[in-house]
């Protein structure tokens, strides 16, 4: 299937709670020790470096990597020139992405940032242990890259600190900053999104984790107003949280009154989910 396919589906799709997604799962995800297909395509848990002050790969990390895996064919067709992870932590996600897209060789280059100095070193070690490379930078979100990388990044992946916490916790150094998301868990997310929009190329895609508490529909709306369509790639409920992996891409029809009718529904799930969104979208238009 062509990589552009998913981009043909326009606008934010559906009320998230009612949405049928590509893969909806209950219970705990496989901790990286499942099918051989997964290990061939992702970082190996036993090779992922660790540090007491660095976020260990967890349900959210696995959900993000599984969503990327489910989109692997599209990513290979996109042939992204530059891929970037914001908040790379242990390096599990960016390493997995580089392994997944290995066949693209030097045609695809990777960048990863984290605000935690231990995290960037841990990521570097994880990349090395798997024989793949990304340029890793210790910085706040993408500070220092925003001007020269403007419009050049084809794929951005983010598993942000999303847990609702008191605001002060965000300022903490070390491990608390891996999850502390402030009010509604949105404080860092809401700084990341405009930064990502600056960096994404016209054909670029953003993959981001969000929690039910983060109000993912509101996130999709905000992005829609800025000209991005979105879809839920994966929803996963664990004992503690409902996780979504959202995918965003630039769409000429978003934020305008262009007709959706001309677009052929691509799959049952996206077709179903377009309907509830339309009313929301018209309310806003």
């Amino acid at each position: 299937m062509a990589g552009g396919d998913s981009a043909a589906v326009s606008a934010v799709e559906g009320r998230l709670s009612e949405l049928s997604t590509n893969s909806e799962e209950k219970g705990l995800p496989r901790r990286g020790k499942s099918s051989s297909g997964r290990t061939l395509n992702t970082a190996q848990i036993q090779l992922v470096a660790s540090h007491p002050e660095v976020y260990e790969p967890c349900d959210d990390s696995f959900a993000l990597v599984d969503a990327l895996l489910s989109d692997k064919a599209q990513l290979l067709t996109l042939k992204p020139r530059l891929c970037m992870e914001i908040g790379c932590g242990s390096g599990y996600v960016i390493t997995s992405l580089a392994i997944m897209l290995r066949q693209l060789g030097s045609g695809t280059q990777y960048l990863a940032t984290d605000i935690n100095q231990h995290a960037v070193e841990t990521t570097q070690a994880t990349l090395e242990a798997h024989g793949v490379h990304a340029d890793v930078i210790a910085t706040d979100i993408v500070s220092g890259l925003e001007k020269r990388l403007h419009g050049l990044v084809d794929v951005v992946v983010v598993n942000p600190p999303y847990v609702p916490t008191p605001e002060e916790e965000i300022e903490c150094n070390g491990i608390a900053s891996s999850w502390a998301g402030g009010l509604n868990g949105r404080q860092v997310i809401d700084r990341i999104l405009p930064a990502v929009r600056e960096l994404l190329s016209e054909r670029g895609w953003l993959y981001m984790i969000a929690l039910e508490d983060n109000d993912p529909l509101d996130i999709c709306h905000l992005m829609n107003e800025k000209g991005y369509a979105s879809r839920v790639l994966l929803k996963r409920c664990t004992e503690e949280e409902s996780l979504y992996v959202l995918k965003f891409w630039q769409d000429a029809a978003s934020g305008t009154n262009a007709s959706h009718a001309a677009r052929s529904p691509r799959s049952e799930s996206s077709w179903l989910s377009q309907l509830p969104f339309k009313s929301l979208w018209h309310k806003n238009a």
Partner: protein
Amino acid sequence: MRLLTHNMLASNARGASTGYPLKLQVVKWTTKEAEPNADFLRGMLPKLDWAALVAATHSLGLPGLLPESPPTDAELSADGAADDEGSALRRLHRALLEIHIEEGTLVCPDTERCFPISKGVPNMLLHEDEVRN
């Protein structure tokens, strides 16, 4: 960090105007070979700040690696360029993607603020009171 990233990185220190290009002081660098990809290089070429890239190769002590002006598309696409060690394609590939800076310092051209590169990772973090408004 490779020179590709150096070419894309600026200082956000308070008082910096453009903060670009960062001066490069290298203590240790290594080379890791990779297959050149002509499409990638042709696509990146128009996005590069050529003068900054050339200056970076000079600070590595490799003044002959790149020409003063950027190669043309035709040069990068020339037959056999990928196999010819001295070709424009190979040289650009080497400069951008095969040289890894392990230890050193990036210096803001406007404020002289230093950003250390340690174990291959540049640290661009600024204290709150250092960040440009």
